[in-house]
């Protein structure tokens, strides 16, 4: 029985796996279309996502004030940074609240409230706290969020050279 079947199979013409003319044409045309569409679209996509792939510029440090002027009481200092926004260059003025912690280390806080981005102020309520007038967020002298705000005040990167304080990019608070 099995012998018979085997002979039957041997008589059948060899089934070659060959591509039909129609299939070949549709693959060729489809491939050419995909290539041309890709050639047109890919440059545009790369163009659009360029901001994602450009190297972030290293934050530069700006000289702000002599270290000797810093006290335990936070003081407000203004300084200019050079900002490049594509083809537009500007020198916006930033503000930092600089003070010393209990060990005498100098640190600088950003004045942008972590609640909704208003500008905080020092000791306007005579309670030795930072206070945001928009929604009454409060922060300790180290920037710890005491009321309303969900996170502590951001800190500026800081270095001291030749008795001067230099401020750099903003980073999350390291004091609390």
């Amino acid at each position: 029985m099995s012998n018979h079947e085997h002979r039957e199979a041997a008589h059948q013409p060899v089934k070659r796996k060959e591509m039909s003319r129609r299939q070949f044409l549709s693959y060729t045309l489809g491939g050419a279309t995909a290539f041309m569409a890709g050639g047109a679209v890919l440059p545009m996509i790369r163009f659009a996502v360029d901001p994602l792939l450009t190297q972030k510029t290293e934050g530069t440090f700006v000289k702000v004030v002599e270290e000797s002027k810093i006290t335990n009481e936070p003081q407000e200092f203004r300084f200019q940074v050079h900002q490049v926004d594509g083809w537009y260059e500007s020198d916006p003025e930033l503000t930092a609240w600089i003070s010393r912690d209990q060990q005498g280390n100098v640190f600088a806080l950003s004045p942008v409230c972590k609640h909704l981005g208003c500008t905080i102020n020092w000791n306007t309520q005579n309670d030795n706290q930072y206070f945001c007038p928009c929604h009454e967020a409060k922060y300790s002298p180290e920037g710890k969020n005491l009321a309303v705000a969900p996170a502590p005040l951001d800190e500026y990167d800081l270095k001291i050279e030749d008795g001067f304080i230099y401020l750099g990019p903003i980073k999350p608070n390291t004091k609390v």
Partner: protein
Amino acid sequence: MFKGIYNWIDERLDITPMWRDVADHEVPEHVNPAHHFSAFVYCFGGLTFFITVIQILSGMFLTMYYVPDIINAYASVDYLQHKVAFGAIVRGMHHWGASLVIVMMFLHTLRVFFTGSYKAPREMNWVVGMLIFFIMLGLGLTGYLLPWDNKAYFATKVTLSIAESVPYIGPYIATLINGGEVVGAQTLTRFFAIHVFFLPGALLALLAAHFFMIRKQGISGPL
């Protein structure tokens, strides 16, 4: 004279069946406010489209004066609003229409929801309608920045913070929308391009699909 022109064209191109196909269709009694006044709820979709057309037209005219540049954007809006004849009207149409289109679209969605019109076989049209809803929100969001005033600037700051709060990919989304690290020159041109070209293009395609499906499937039956 117009009849003569029409007949001349119709003889050559046979345009009558084309507009007949678009314009001649039965309005069922239950959606006709002349029969049942409460059927006015069926007008909200058409009203949404009407306001959308006004938005497109007024927007086209606004770009005759507007420039998407951080130094001149506010000045150009100020100029077209206060110095150009009918500037307050044309910009007003675009400004108030933007809110109205959201309101009308919301009412239209409520009507579709409470009449159960989203049910089979019209599920795809509901999904397309939802996509249109998000495109409209995107148009409102990107258009808000264009006057480049304080409100626009800080609204965009908030938008970017929301985008940034997406888990894992949030910062990348924010950078992509922002066109860099600062909300500035590149953000404004990006939002302008999205507001004026990308989203309206997507909107027109989706509206075509929306209208094609409602004509193909017909208005849903009475409650």
